[in-house]
């Protein structure tokens, strides 16, 4: 471990526990699951599932940028959400934010997420260049 492989950026909500926003390893960047928290206040955004998911992807994007990558470089995404009725909204928003070449994706419904979050998304991405 020569240089620090960890990334924490002010452009995403501060990690609320013993973990970092992202880590680089072997030409890839691994990103911690992001929820719909405002980076400035740390509070959940208002507006329900759609607003939370948009903010979560904004946070992911900010972290990827800080790590030298981008949404366009995502190899694999994983999404957890609480209410099956949000499936269509999830797919629509995801389709607006991710473009060809689309990443592989796993999404599933969960019993609950941290402090009542409705959705979260993590990813593994290639480093730019």
């Amino acid at each position, binding site marked *: *471990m020569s240089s*620090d*492989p*960890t990334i924490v950026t002010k452009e995403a909500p501060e990690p*609320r*526990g*013993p*973990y*970092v*926003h*992202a*880590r680089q*390893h*072997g030409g890839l960047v*691994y*990103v*911690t*699951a992001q929820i719909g928290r405002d980076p400035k206040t740390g509070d959940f955004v208002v507006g329900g599932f759609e607003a939370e998911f948009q903010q979560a992807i904004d946070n992911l994007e900010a972290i990827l940028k800080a790590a030298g990558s981008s949404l366009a470089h995502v190899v694999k995404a*994983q999404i*957890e959400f609480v209410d099956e009725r949000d499936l269509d909204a999830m797919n629509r928003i995801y389709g607006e934010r991710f473009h060809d070449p689309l990443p592989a994706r796993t999404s599933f419904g*969960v*019993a*609950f*997420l*941290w*402090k009542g979050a409705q959705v*979260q998304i*993590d990813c593994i991405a290639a480093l730019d260049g």
Partner: protein
Amino acid sequence: MSSHRGVVSLRGPQPTGSYTHAHVQGRMVWVTAQAGRDPGNGELVPGGMEGQLSRAIDNLEAILEDCDSSLDRVITTQIMYTDPADADTIDAVCATRFRPPLPVRTTWGVKFLAAEPGREVVRVQIDCVAETR
């Protein structure tokens, strides 16, 4: 040593299905999710979330060591748990075990975890991907 191998450690609870404790590929190791089971008798340890998660991380650590890795080489972790009230305890326990450079993390709540129904309640499990030395 092949660069591609499955590993079963004597220091982790023995796998109860068709999986190994870990799989090593090149300089990366993928570790099977660990619950708070005693490696000796496979029984769930007492102590609720705190006891179970501490033991699960002990198991992860022992398996990593046998794969020529360690907790401080963990890149990503996934934690699944059954009770939303345990969220803060997870952070507290992890904070005593993981040191910088810290891993990335994804956690979520599940309906249940693998257990003997009616006899025990598995509250948490944790897996990881790490680099080897």
